[in-house]
């Protein structure tokens, strides 16, 4: 039972890390109705900006501020040079534009900051909490707990922002219908620039935590891989959904990784494992069949 709990908690905490990446997708989707393929690349760019600045002798706090400025400028540039030309185009056009954007970032970021994998020390050691280890014999990482706290803070702030501020309401209006939003005087360009800036900030937080955990390197772009099933389960338009989806994916994939292989081995023979690579997608597929809009997503109804 202790081991089961240990795996479950570890999975939930891993899920929070997935949620941090998924949040960026949700923000862009809410504001523009497009799945931003470049979110993983933005995580990479943000983390690389921090270590790139630090290598020039800039202290961490200032590097974070500079990286935030870089991400905001990037967001504004994306709106000005990519999205503005595509207003009222079908979502697939916007989606294709983000694919191009992803390749652009993946080429540009290492060209500017170098491609070597680098360590990022944000002052939180990824070690077990002694008290829990001694009393319960369970490994719970300090780092994972801090990441969970940061994610909780982000989600609360973003949920309140969307629900109770004028900009938040404008964002939701833009997401529903670009043209209708424009017709009632909502400044679409400003809204998109703001939301890409906020998504850049979320990418910065995710990039720093993932970078501190595994090193800052090209593989940060892969963090987006797990965001897709998280979004399918939580819903593409829900900030709290990103968290719940992340928790479900994290916990279920870790439990599956531990407890499914012995069952599969006894049934089919051989050696099984590496299940967490595909399990989240199978789970997401199941959700798509039962609840296509996700747990917290908005039901899409077309009037005929």
């Amino acid at each position, binding site marked *: 039972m202790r081991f089961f709990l240990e795996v479950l908690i570890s999975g939930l905490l891993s899920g929070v*890390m997935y949620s941090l990446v998924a949040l960026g997708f949700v923000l862009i989707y809410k504001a523009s109705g497009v799945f931003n393929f470049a979110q993983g690349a933005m995580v990479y760019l943000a983390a690389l900006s921090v270590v790139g600045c630090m290598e020039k002798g800039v202290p961490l706090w200032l590097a974070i501020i500079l990286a935030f400025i870089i991400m905001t400028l990037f967001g504004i540039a994306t709106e000005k040079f990519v999205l503005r030309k595509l207003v009222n185009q079908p979502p697939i056009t916007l989606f294709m534009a983000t694919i191009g954007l992803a390749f652009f970032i993946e080429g540009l970021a290492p060209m500017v900051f170098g491609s070597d994998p680098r360590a990022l020390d944000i002052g939180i050691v*990824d070690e077990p909490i002694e008290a829990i280890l001694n009393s319960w014999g369970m490994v719970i990482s300090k780092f994972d707990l801090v990441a969970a706290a940061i994610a909780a803070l982000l989600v609360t702030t973003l949920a309140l922002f969307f629900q109770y501020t004028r900009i938040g309401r404008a964002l939701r209006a833009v997401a529903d219908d670009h043209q209708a939003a424009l017709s009632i005087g909502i400044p679409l360009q400003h809204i998109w620039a703001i939301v890409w800036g906020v998504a850049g900030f979320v990418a910065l937080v995710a990039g720093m935590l993932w970078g501190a955990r595994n090193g800052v*390197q*090209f593989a940060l772009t892969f963090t987006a891989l797990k965001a897709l099933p998280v979004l399918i389960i939580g819903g593409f338009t829900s900030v709290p959904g990103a968290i719940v989806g992340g928790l479900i994916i994290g916990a279920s994939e870790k439990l599956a990784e531990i407890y499914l292989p012995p069952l599969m081995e006894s049934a089919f023979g051989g050696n099984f494992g590496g299940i967490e690579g595909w399990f989240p997608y199978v789970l997401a597929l199941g959700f798509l069949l039962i609840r296509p809009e996700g747990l917290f997503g908005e039901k899409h109804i077309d009037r005929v």
Partner: protein
Amino acid sequence: MFAYRKPLLMTAVSLALLSQAASAEDQFFPITSYRVGPYGANGQSFYGGFVDYLNYVNLKDGGINGVKLVWEECETEYNNAKGVECYERMKAKAKVSTGPIHTMSTGVAYALIDKATEDKIPLAMMGYGRTDAVDGSVFPYAFPLVTTYQMQASAILKFIKDKEKGSLDGKKIVFLYHDSAYGKEPIVALQEEAKLNKFTLIQIPVAHPGNEQSAQWLKIRQENPDYVIFWGWGVMNQTALKAAQKVGFAREKMIGSWWAGSEEDTVPAGDAAKGYMAATWNVAGKDVPLIADIEKVVYGAGKGDLQDKTKLGTILYNRGVSAAVLSVEALRGAQAKYGKGKPVNGEQVRWALENLNITDARLKEIGAVNLLPPIKTSCTNHEGSGMVKIQQWDGAKWVPVSGWIEGNKELIHPLFKTSAQQYAKEKNITPRDCAKES
């Protein structure tokens, strides 16, 4: 402010090199490299070392017996399709004269084996690739030189056995591996070793890319093994080191493969990497006479390939130099047999690769003694060495903690033979009679 000028410069230099036509008197090297993309950092070091040595031979000796070395690089981004495309682009030139192609990618090597055999262009797969190509009777143009995954795993076990006073009986060893062909290759060898040495082998795969391993490491903690043998790649390496730290598994009991034993693997993991060990078939450091001389001759002349000179002497840089040393030695051997002072073609280089005999004395002449192990190849043994050293990360650099260790050849090589025969049967290949090869 930032590093953008260097890649632009590199691009300009690459274009200049591309336009450098190989004349009939020059020896051509087709280089399928990856300097950008997900594993670009590794490629920059390896191919930096490779190109620097070719430049060194030109600058120091005026080429090989007066034959100047020229090369063309084609960027694969570690992508199999692009690797094949690059090969096709360069093969017309390579059919005239060629050095062996180093793909530094098992996937690209697999994709090229049949084509290269047909085109008579030799492939060198140092420590990777299709490992049953050790059997040259079935794979005449493929050379998994120096060592293979299986021999490496066997050598790691020999090292552990020595630490355990000569016995692995009753020990528990976890094999944590990248769930791919690369990760799975040593399993048969490890299973055979487990039977022979009576230890318990627990296999734990990690799905690509391996940036999440908490479940695997909780399982390792629960199993409480004596050692973890680790076959990682890319981000999986740093993640494993951090995860080992998280569950409190001693890094001194963790031994990686040579794909998991470079500075690129340990530096990003910070303190978590300290004490971790890995196998290697070449040592790091600028104190190797050849590396020091390359710095003097090539970088002194302002012709160094590295954008970041701090990579000089790193594991992957020195590996690139080692690969180039073996390639150039093969060309020397081919010239010695087929005519000194003339470029050699793929068939001639193939013969030379199959008849390499690089002794310690020869390595000393080159200034590469102890940089890599001595090598003697033959038709039945395209590996030629099977030796690795174990090195340990001291927090700042890799330090060798063993001499050259050879895997259990009697146990492992018959596995290659069986696999190669199976391949020959599938592809309808009649193996050469190695007894008749000179």
